[in-house]
């Protein structure tokens, strides 16, 4: 079966009051295989997993995440951000097979 890959999604409130702490939730499709398991034919399934998630807001660093193979398939990640100004949140996921995916979400802060 071909594994679904990519399709990153971000859920974040579209507006907030200045100083509010908002929650950002994200999801991406990736098998997150460990390289320790075998398929039905006894062949080792190679490690294929997202290693880094980089989050910026208005191109300023917000959060950097490093992942191991212990993160579940199709990884979900939620974190918080203090709403200081309107702008764009960008997330970039990179895996160990040179896969790179990005997604953005906008917020209006009043």
């Amino acid at each position: 079966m071909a594994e679904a890959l990519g399709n990153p999604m971000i859920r974040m409130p579209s507006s907030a009051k200045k100083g509010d702490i908002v929650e950002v939730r994200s999801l991406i499709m990736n098998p997150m295989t460990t390289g320790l398991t075998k398929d039905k034919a006894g062949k080792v399934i190679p490690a294929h997993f997202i290693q880094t998630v980089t989050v910026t807001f208005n191109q300023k660093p917000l959060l950097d995440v490093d992942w191991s193979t212990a993160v579940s398939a199709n990884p979900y990640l939620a974190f918080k951000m203090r709403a200081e100004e309107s702008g764009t949140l960008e997330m970039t996921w990179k895996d160990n097979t040179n896969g790179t995916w990005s997604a953005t979400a906008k917020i209006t802060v009043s």
Partner: protein
Amino acid sequence: MKKVQRRQFLGTSATAVAVAAVAGSSLLRAGSAIAGNVAGWPAKAFDAKTLDQAMTDSIGKTNIPVSAKVILKAPTIAENGGSVPVTIEVDSPMTADDYISTVWLFVDHNPTPLASQFNFTPACGKAYIQERIKMAKTDNVRVVAKTNKGELMASAPKEVKVTIGGCGG
């Protein structure tokens, strides 16, 4: 050791690979046979096979005082070790002068105990993370947090009873 060397080599050549990858479609890139670690990914700590080694390679020490400021939530019983929800929250003002810079998440007896590393900035407002992890068997999960001043504090270890281990899938 051979594996580590290969990873390190590919890490240094990541720029060249990235340039080559721009030409391909995202699907081709993702399915590429050329595997290599993402630049900056802490391979040594993630490859460590024991909790002590993983803590030494990531934090630099193993004996971290437990603090009530570090809150780790995980289910007491997880039917599926392949997807165990964990929530991490560290009490911190998250100002430019006083914030949590790094949080490490460990599963004591996983084949590689270091599960994740989170590098926060004051702009996060809260040192908070929610994700799902794999657990090989009934085990302790634990978190270590570091402030921007270098102060280390740990959560109490939280035992999760795993009915079906998460390493089969």
